[in-house]
């Protein structure tokens, strides 16, 4: 059974960096996903008075090229998830944001066609396994770039934490064998 997500689109432009996704001053809440979520995307000019209160759980963030550039802060994808966003679709991702999302098991999809076509408020349905985005508002469909199997595997098993747990278990078994 493939996993399907549904929600409204929230759109952003090119090179949205991590200071805009979650300003450094909120790094003091690095262990509190809910609190981070309250301030997600607040650094984007125009969102000074907040953004996350407009989000319904399951909504989709759609962005231009190089989304998440800048710092290595893992609280960037954590804040977006904390705000209730179920998946991020972008023209392309900056590499540390990309890694962090995969490691967290937080779904991200790369689709230049979707990033160019989707308008704010569009109703989207996303089939993660098939890598297909359906736009009910525009009656359109977009295909996503595929990731290497290992990355899909990581997202599916819930990220790097369960993967490391498995490896630690193997190592302990080897030591005691």
């Amino acid at each position, binding site marked *: 059974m493939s996993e399907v997500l549904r929600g409204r689109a929230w759109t952003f432009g090119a*090179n949205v*960096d991590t*200071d*805009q996704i979650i*300003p*450094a*001053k909120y*790094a*003091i*809440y*690095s*262990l509190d996903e809910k609190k981070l979520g309250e301030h997600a995307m607040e*650094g*984007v*000019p125009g969102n*000074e008075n907040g953004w996350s209160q407009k989000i319904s759980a399951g909504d989709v963030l759609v962005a231009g*090229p*190089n989304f998440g*550039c*800048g*710092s*290595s*802060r*893992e*609280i960037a994808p954590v804040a977006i998830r904390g705000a209730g966003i179920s998946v991020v679709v972008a023209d*392309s991702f*900056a*590499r*540390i944001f*990309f*890694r*962090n999302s995969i*490691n*967290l098991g937080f779904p991200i999809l790369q689709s230049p066609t979707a990033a160019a076509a989707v308008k704010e408020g569009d109703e989207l349905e996303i089939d993660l396994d098939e890598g297909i985005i359906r736009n009910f508002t525009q009656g359109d469909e977009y295909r996503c770039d595929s990731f*290497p199997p*290992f*990355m899909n595997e990581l997202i599916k098993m819930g*990220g*790097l*934490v369960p*993967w*490391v*747990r498995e*490896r*630690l278990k193997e190592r302990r078994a080897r030591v005691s064998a």
Partner: protein
Amino acid sequence: MGMTMSEKILARASGRDAVRPGDLVLARVDFAMGHDLTIPPAGKIMREQMGAQQVWDVDRVAVVQDHFQPAKDIASAALGKMTREFAREMGIKWYFEVGQGGICHTVLPERGLVLPGELVVGADSHSCTYGALNNFATGIGSTDLACVMALGELWFRVPETLRFVYRNRLPQWVEAKDLILHVIGKIGVDGARSKAMEHTGEALTHIDMEGRLTMTNMAIEAGAKNGIMAFDEVTREFLEERAQRAYTPVASDPDAEYEKTLEYDAEAVPITLARPMSPDHTASIDEVAGTRVDQVFIGSCTNSKIGDLRRAAAVLKDRKIAPHVRLIVTPSSAQVARQAEREGLIGIFMDAGAGWTVATCGACLGGHMGVVGAGEVCLSTSNRNFPGRMGDPTAQVYLSNPVVAAASAVAGEIIHPKEVVGKELVAV
């Protein structure tokens, strides 16, 4: 087919004879770093979620108190405390307390902890800095760091390599910072996205290790995975009294495959600044001269090592900053601060009217000791000027080299340093 030095390091670390761009490898890490914003989540993930009770090798992890330390408020005191307790409980050998270390990306090279041929990761985006020392160094997240601390291994995608060739020599007043800003201006903040930037060419032979570290430091500002340089006499000399371990340099094969080679005439590079609000929004000094500034910040892992401070002091000696300007000078490490004290640089800064702070990331990330307010203009020697990076999102941040920064503090506006000091800079 030959390999680039980035590929050679990833091949060796993953136990393979060869790797190609796009390969996913599981590689053994030689050194890892975390700081007061990334150790608390990484430590918690490692111990509570992954179930690891110790780090894989206590000699190969550095923990640095630098971002919001000395603690700027109660919440950052809690993060500092968690960081300290984690280092103590794990028995981390390279723990740097407030006042003893400084900014991680200056501390690790100056203590000889990151060496040629090694695979280095740091839970901070500017960890690419270390590549000037002929290693593969890249920034990672907190879950990544937890994985490395638990296993000593991490997954990597082998990057394509872009080769940058710098012909000739940088002219007077033009520094490594100007060169890397010039390159970022040409290729854009995603121009090297997820790729390796290999810097080569004659111009580099005339750039000292500090300047080289400034260049690799900003690889991430072009979106790169790492910045890397060949091992040479400058590298060997820098490491002579510092290296904590034996090391094996790597060189790119003559028939290594590059995705692209980009050539620049170093002699034609002007003094280059980044304008608001992006590091690739560059301009030559002539285009931005006359811009009035409210704050000048000389600091950060990019441009606040001893040579940077010497040149800034040479501008400021026997001069005063403009009455409407505040100048903040933040050394990048305790060793740099101690040396500046020995050489009398701190007195020069203070006589000029500057504020001298403890070594910390501080103002660079809008943390503390120099956060900028709404609509203010700041000229900074740091690396990044996206909206809100140094404080209020409406603040206008320019990036420059330290000589331009010091001269502009005196003039009260962005200015060519020759207008302040005359034909040449006289060393203090």
